[in-house]
């Protein structure tokens, strides 16, 4: 059932610089993960995307959140029923 999602995650992780990828549903529960993505962060990722969506124009596209730290970058994007987080090494 989740074969398509697994394939998409596998495809994403093969992009240069990507160390992990995480897919979360609207309840903050993990749907799939590849690489070194921290599974403990599922809830926070979904919550962050939800909070950021409130700041953006409700009729426009949902924002992409970029968190930068010494160890790398996390890109978070929320779609209708799914939030995706990409973990990049800096």
């Amino acid at each position, binding site marked *: 059932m989740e074969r398509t999602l697994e394939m998409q995650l596998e495809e994403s992780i093969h992009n240069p610089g990507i160390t992990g990828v995480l897919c979360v549903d609207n*309840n*903050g*529960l*993990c749907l799939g993960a590849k690489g070194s993505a921290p599974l403990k962060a*599922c*809830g*926070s990722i*979904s*919550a962050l995307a*939800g909070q950021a969506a409130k700041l953006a124009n409700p009729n426009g596209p949902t924002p992409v959140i970029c968190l930068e730290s010494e160890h790398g970058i996390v890109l978070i994007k929320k779609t209708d029923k799914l939030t995706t987080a990409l973990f990049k090494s800096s």
Partner: protein
Amino acid sequence: MTEELKTYLLKLMGTVEGLHAIAITDRDGVVIVKVTGQMAPDPALRPPFLSVFGVMAEQASKMGIGSNKRIINYYSTYQTVQVNHHPLLLHFIADKNANTGLILELENELADVLKEINKVVGMM
């Protein structure tokens, strides 16, 4: 100590939107500490509800896939997240739209508190 614990739990409760109550019970569902918000559903905090999780976890552990750790129930208006932290049980009662993942993350935040309560329960 109880007051400090309640203050801490209330603070944690405030970090998750839609979380109405946190209860820590023993495995029989006897409440050790509980904090509730105004919207908390009363039946979900009474012993008949809280004591059922201990039995459910025990039965679920017989499935042959290891011991049961957590049970999440979604109802029409509320959700309950119950965690088996032997010999203690953790109960979270939240709105149906609350972020379940964030509630599950609270388990890590409560690890130290549970360790302290475990010591007290162990002495009894």
